[in-house]
């Protein structure tokens, strides 16, 4: 056993750190550090810089731009990116549809989409969840009916994150309503968001922001060549995609950065004549979160070291569960440090409330999402008790 990274991995980490902190515009990283939402252009600029250096899709197969890195190298790449406050490559492109196209797509589809997907020339959004199909995704009701060499899509999707920026959508639809099991008879279709019959309604979230949308399909005509994989086998692709979604979801680097910020804010905030950081209750709360974060990081490293052939380790559910809870605890801590100032969320010019205190509560409310998306924490408990414990 050995604690330190090998000299090669230390050099690799240094290389990543240097790249992320010098090549991605400071202005964009400052926005992330201030916990303000990056714009569409910020995401595109960043991903194109990364892609030009072959750092946008290292986990893809080598022939499509992947790097053949070890799981530990990928882990370091992701952690350093988060620590440097770099907006990560768009998950819908790089973690979701890209790997699905590489695995299930035909040659024509790979040629048509993969390079543009890696470079964010196409911005993808996800058409999976529906009003009556959330955690129970296989209950989806959107239909696609064959008409000549086209599919005609009708139905509704929801929680479509950043759909307002999207050029294309990858969408699950029911293509065989008579299938015995609801998982069978589902297919994956891709089509442009400006196809006639597609309408998008933004959903305002608790933080006042617009991240997610409802998407409606009314007789949307999709050419047959836009079906990915085999007809009625879309559930295989959905499972493959959702498995990839949990990789890297512990977000250790992101939590570390937020906790470091919380410490700084607690040092600047005074109460009873001393910094909050010296208040035993706050110091202890920080110490407990930090210690669990150390345990989470070490568990992530163990999982990474034991994940063979790129498949997620079953214990990745532990990372999702604990990672989401710790993200939420840190955002809660920052609201508490802001204290009475935390109410001033939408203060503008003329207010003396510092920016960090204005965004604290909206962020805390927004972060309730992290224990819901990517398979809710209750779904993770089902996976742990069923797959791991055999209950």
């Amino acid at each position, binding site marked *: 056993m050995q604690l330190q990274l090998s000299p090669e991995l230390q050099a690799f980490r240094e290389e990543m750190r240097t790249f992320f902190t010098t090549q991605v515009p400071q202005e964009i990283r400052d926005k992330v550090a201030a916990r303000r939402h990056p714009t569409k252009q910020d995401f595109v600029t960043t991903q194109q810089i990364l892609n030009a250096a072959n750092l946008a899709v290292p986990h893809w197969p080598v022939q499509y731009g992947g790097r053949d890195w070890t799981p530990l190298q990928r882990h370091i790449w992701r952690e350093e990116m988060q620590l440097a406050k770099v907006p990560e490559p768009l998950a819908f492109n790089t973690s979701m549809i890209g790997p699905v196209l590489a695995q299930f797509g035909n040659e024509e589809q790979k040629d048509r989409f993969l390079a543009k997907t890696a470079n964010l020339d196409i911005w993808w959004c996800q058409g999976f969840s529906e009003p009556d199909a959330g955690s129970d995704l296989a209950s989806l009701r959107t239909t696609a009916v064959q008409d000549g060499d086209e599919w005609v899509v009708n139905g509704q999707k929801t929680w479509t994150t950043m759909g307002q920026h999207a050029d294309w959508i990858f969408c699950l639809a029911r293509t065989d309503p008579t299938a015995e099991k609801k998982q069978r008879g589902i297919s994956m279709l891709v089509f442009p968001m400006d196809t006639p019959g597609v309408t998008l309604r933004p959903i305002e979230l608790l933080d006042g922001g617009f991240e997610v949308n409802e998407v409606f399909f009314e007789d949307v005509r999709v050419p047959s060549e836009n079906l990915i994989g085999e007809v009625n086998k879309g559930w295989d692709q959905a499972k493959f995609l959702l498995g990839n979604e949990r990789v890297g979801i512990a977000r250790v680097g992101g939590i570390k950065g937020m906790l470091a910020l919380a410490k700084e804010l607690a040092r600047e905030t005074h109460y009873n004549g001393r910094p909050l950081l010296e208040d035993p209750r706050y110091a*202890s709360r920080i110490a407990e979160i930090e210690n669990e974060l150390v345990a989470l990081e070490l568990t992530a490293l163990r999982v990474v070291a034991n994940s063979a052939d790129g498949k997620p380790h079953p214990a990745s559910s532990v990372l999702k569960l604990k990672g989401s809870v710790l993200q939420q605890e840190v955002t809660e801590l920052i609201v508490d440090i802001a204290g009475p100032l935390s109410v001033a969320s939408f203060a503008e010019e003329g207010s003396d409330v510092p920016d960090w205190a204005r965004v604290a509560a909206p962020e805390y409310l927004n972060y309730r999402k992290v224990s819901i998306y990517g398979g809710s924490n209750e779904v993770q408990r089902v996976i742990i008790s069923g797959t791991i414990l055999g*209950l």
Partner: protein
Amino acid sequence: MDFTYDSEQNDLREAVAALLARAYGDSEVRRKVTKTDPGFDEKVWTQLAEMGLLGLPFAEEHGGMGAGPVEVAIVAEEIGRVLAPEPFIEAVVLAGGLISSVGSDAQKGELLEAIAGGSSLPTFAHAEIGARWTPTASAVTATQAGDAWTLSGVKEPVPHGARADVLVVSAALPGGGTGLFVVQGDATGLSRTGYRNHDGTRSANVRFEGTPATQLGTGGDQTDAIERAQAVARIAYSHEAVGAMDTALRTTVEYLKTRKQFGVTLNKFQALNFRAADMYVSLELARSIALWASVVQLSDGDVVTAADRARLLTSRTGRHIGKDAIQLHGGIGVTAEYKVGHYTSRLTAIDHLLGDGDFAADRLAAKVGSYPTVDPLGAPYA
């Protein structure tokens, strides 16, 4: 970075597990053994010596195996897995560790060889009523007359203090500071009253009345050595706790699969399965940090802070798993006739032996402002 066990370490685990499974595979045996003094099986102690485990961390020149912290961790975890009552951590890791780090060559030659061979069982007499957890001593004082030292005062609770034949004793020095002394079990002015602890192990009230003692090593203040030896023992205890948590969870899962109520097995109730899933999360986090702390020790990093981290997490997770293991069993979990409650009892005892979770949290909290982030693979740990 490499957290995988090599083949020799895996062999060691298998051998220890096999020995302890023969001894305590049936939990009734442990129950019987812990009912009578000395609270463990002298024959098993001899077998541990024959396997070389009682000299595991000592240098080969002193009859030891010269093994590292990961090997100690493996033994501790296997002990925890079956709740073997033999005082490996108390005698070998803590008392033996102090002799090994502080003792003179002559003392090491004499004492460590006897421990490794199983003929001597030492203990560290350090706790004092009212002192809670500290690396210093105050209730027992040392007095010097010429070259000779005597000790006076009371230590309690001293682990296996009635059975031990050698006591490593901390005592307040006349000029300030805390010294370490060796007292033989048959010394004059030494009286010991042993009793049974809630977890089946033994402790004692140990009274010194002008008891002759020998300085361990060159004498002087040994507070730092005590702090370090306790840190090393905390890390070993975190592994014993992980072993115990692992069995507590397995036993609970097995029970949920077989116990029927309302005409179905308990694993048909999602409320119960979800609690088991949370126990698994606790266990994996505890396993990660305990293993890490041992590797920090191996790398000669900041072992005191690493031990506090391991202690804080294994305290929180040990309580979580211990309490829920009983709850998910129902009434049978509270009986002495069924094994799972004994795991909770031992986890509770471990938690309070060298400082509990709040103790560790306070020490870590005092430092959180002095650095922005923790890199578990970097300074001060690596």
